[in-house]
């Protein structure tokens, strides 16, 4: 029997970025909040120790900070006709674990989606006609740019993002991204210094007439004190960033921006190494009354609360809803049901170039040390004569030169033996590349549900991911690869090649931890799981916060938009829901 604990105002599942942001805002509003986190407590001085954090084998190869499949795996298949099998090791994407979540080991690329993304169906239909997008399940998000811009601003100032604005209140700014949607003010800190490869990239593509700008970065160019009074340090370009935690307090995370303030509050409690098994509903299924969790010794507890906020990784939010029967499972055969709908990913391609006699020093890196261009991203270019919608950001980012994973050799070189060694030495200082991070648009047959066969360590069904790259996205990606091939020419490299994406999403090689959708926001309860405030249509004292709410994925990293949605939901709860608990939007 689960031991019944005293009631809290708010129970948060997961203490990563979104859990920390909501806990901070809701405790400020006077609520008693408990955050229940499956993984361990983690903090900079104890767990991200500068004496040994620069260990490629431990953190990048054996993935020490990540969710381990023994704790929770998922199954995958490419289409509903196949049998899903477990990803016995995580490869294509790497969910986080523990306090701080994936925000501990992210790269720090901090983008805003475009104004047009939030009304994507309306926008694309108006510009190109409904027939253009008929194969896609695109839909508006239910929120508008003008409503949510200040939430982006809040997140960027919380983190101290280093960048250069391209559009302040409609005025184009030299040196920034001319394609971005209007922002209310400049970034909190200036761009990072640039190493050789991104500098060369920016010079070259600028001469081609494109519009490069410094990639907006949560690795800070200078020391910064955020609005909560938390101080961050300057990035040292150490090259141990993504897959690693920062030992310098210079990468924004819950640890470096919120927890020093939040943890001191008497009306906040974090319970770590406690795994929530399900959200318990009232007998009519219309309200959440508590969560059941299991602690590190296997004892069960029931934690009642007036509100329950799902703030785990997006995929786990969807699984928790399905395990708890919050909302109705989406069915790809009929497109009825909402939970699991519009699962999207990211559509990537890369350009690789080899030179002679260069010193790129790839080990001088940071998660977001780079230059980007949006000339071919989103709807920044005219699609009326093209057979697809969407696009890709093109980024030259030097994250690292760690040699287990990053030792490029000229194509055609052997992979072992004496000639491999020479090719490795020749390639290490002479390779540079840039990559396309493409949009991923929803189709009817890409979705999430519970696996009928495979179970986790507690006997609960694993999440089943059914996904392949839609034809629209393949066409988009090939168009971008064509552009990238032309872009490599002026570099006059000894060798240049651009990859071309194929059908058949492969769960093994790392691609991107940008899994989106499954509990999407919208204005119609028939086609969205949560309303514009991320409140469940079906169980109104449950909010579901994360990339699970994205109705599609753009050619941009998701964390900036996740952080904005967390602030947006927090504002709705503190200004609207607390005063009048219940559905904030009539169903």
């Amino acid at each position: 029997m689960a031991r019944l604990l005293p009631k809290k105002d708010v129970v948060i599942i997961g203490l990563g970025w979104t859990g920390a942001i909501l806990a901070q805002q809701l405790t400020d509003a006077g609520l008693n909040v408990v955050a229940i986190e499956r993984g361990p407590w983690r903090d900079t001085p104890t767990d991200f120790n500068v004496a040994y954090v620069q260990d490629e084998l431990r953190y990048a190869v054996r993935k020490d900070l990540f969710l381990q499949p023994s704790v929770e795996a998922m199954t995958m298949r490419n289409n509903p006709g196949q049998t899903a099998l477990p990803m016995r090791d995580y490869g294509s994407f790497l969910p986080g674990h523990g306090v701080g979540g994936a925000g501990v080991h992210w790269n720090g690329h901090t983008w805003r989606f475009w104004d047009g993304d939030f009304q994507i169906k309306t926008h694309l239909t108006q510009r190109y006609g409904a027939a253009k997008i008929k194969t896609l399940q695109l839909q508006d998000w239910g929120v508008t740019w003008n409503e949510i811009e200040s939430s982006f601003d809040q997140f960027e100032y919380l983190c101290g993002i280093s960048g250069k604005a391209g559009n302040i209140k409609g005025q184009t700014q030299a040196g920034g991204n001319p394609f971005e949607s209007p922002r209310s003010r400049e970034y909190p800190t200036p761009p990072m210094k640039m190493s050789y490869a991104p500098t060369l990239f920016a010079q070259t593509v600028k001469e081609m007439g494109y519009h490069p700008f410094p990639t907006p970065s949560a690795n800070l160019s200078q020391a910064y004190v955020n609005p909560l009074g938390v101080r961050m340090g300057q990035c040292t370009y150490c090259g141990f960033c993504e897959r690693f935690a920062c030992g310098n307090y210079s990468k924004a995370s819950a640890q470096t921006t919120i927890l020093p303030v939040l943890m001191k509050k008497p009306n906040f409690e974090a319970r770590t190494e406690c795994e929530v098994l399900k959200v318990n509903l009232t007998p009519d299924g219309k309200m959440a009354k508590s969560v059941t969790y299991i602690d590190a010794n296997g004892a069960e507890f029931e934690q009642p609360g007036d509100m329950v906020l799902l703030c785990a990784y997006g995929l786990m939010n969807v699984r928790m809803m399905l395990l708890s029967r919050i909302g109705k499972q989406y069915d790809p055969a009929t497109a009825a049901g909402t939970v699991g709908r519009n699962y999207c990913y990211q559509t990537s391609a890369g350009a690789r170039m080899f030179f002679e006699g260069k010193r790129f020093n790839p080990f001088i890196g940071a998660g977001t040390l780079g230059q980007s261009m949006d000339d071919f991203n989103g709807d920044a270019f005219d699609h009326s004569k093209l057979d697809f919608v969407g696009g890709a950001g093109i980024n030259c980012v030097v994250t690292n030169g760690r040699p287990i994973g990053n030792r490029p050799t000229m194509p055609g070189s052997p992979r072992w033996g004496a000639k491999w060694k020479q090719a490795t030495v020749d390639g290490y200082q002479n390779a540079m590349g840039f990559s396309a991070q493409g949009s991923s648009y929803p189709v009817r047959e890409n979705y999430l549900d519970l696996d009928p066969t495979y179970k986790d360590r507690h006997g609960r069904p694993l999440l089943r991911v059914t996904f392949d790259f839609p034809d629209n996205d393949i066409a988009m990606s090939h168009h971008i690869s064509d552009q990238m091939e032309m872009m490599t020419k002026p570099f006059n490299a000894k060798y240049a090649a651009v990859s071309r994406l194929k059908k058949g999403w492969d769960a093994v090689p790392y691609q991107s931890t940008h899994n989106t959708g499954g509990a999407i926001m919208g204005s119609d309860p028939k086609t969205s799981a949560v309303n514009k405030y991320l409140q469940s249509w079906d169980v109104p004292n449950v909010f579901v916060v994360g990339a699970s709410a994205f109705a599609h994925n753009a050619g941009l990293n998701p964390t900036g938009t996740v952080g904005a949605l967390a602030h947006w939901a927090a504002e709705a709860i503190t200004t609207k829901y607390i005063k009048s608990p219940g559905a904030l939007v009539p169903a």
Partner: protein
Amino acid sequence: MNHTSRTLSRRRLLASAAALPILAASAADGRSLSGTVPWSPFAGEPPRPVNPLGWYFFTPGEAATIEAIVERFIPGDHLSPSGKDCGCAIYIDRQLAGSFGQASRLYTQGPFLPGLSTQGYQGDLTPAGRYRLGLRALSDYTNTSYKKDFRALTAEQQDEVLAGLDGGKIKLKLKPGFSTKEFFELMLQNTMEGFFADPLYGGNKGMASWKMIGFPGARYDYRDHIDKHNQPYPHGPVSIYGQA
């Protein structure tokens, strides 16, 4: 992994946290944290350097075969000592004796069904089990084809066999769900891990691979060189345990 386990560390944390008044009365096992940023001494988990003596997993015969293989993957020359002399076989042995070898972090529940290429490894063997089976099958193959163990072949013959495993010309007698190509890739990946990892793991003696390519290792601050474009970095590598 050669660092203290999460469980041990957690117990130590619990023991230290139990003495503090911040522990809430309702605390379950797991930690209840409120009112302060928790901190306790020795909460970190530094890695432990491997002991380079003896074999923990391999039999003497297997060890000799693996040493011969890493010697062919990474031959000694003017660029670096060989994979064997750098300790790559020791590295693999210690990995197989630890959590990597036992697949302790992976999802290992059945049923084990044949998968699509996009679904990854679906066999029921741990990495340790794959090495044990693969090395036995390799020995059977060379004893049939060359009447010798792999380690007794000439360097040219060894390269011929490895190229056959790599290119698909040789099919070892393994088991469903575990192909010859997968065995080859596992050995190659683990050899390269050892050669390029921090020397504390046993396979990059003297930071040989880092010196070979010019990787400065565990240095953590390049602010003085970030804008010195296309110029050699002036310092050699350092390791986590302070080799320089």
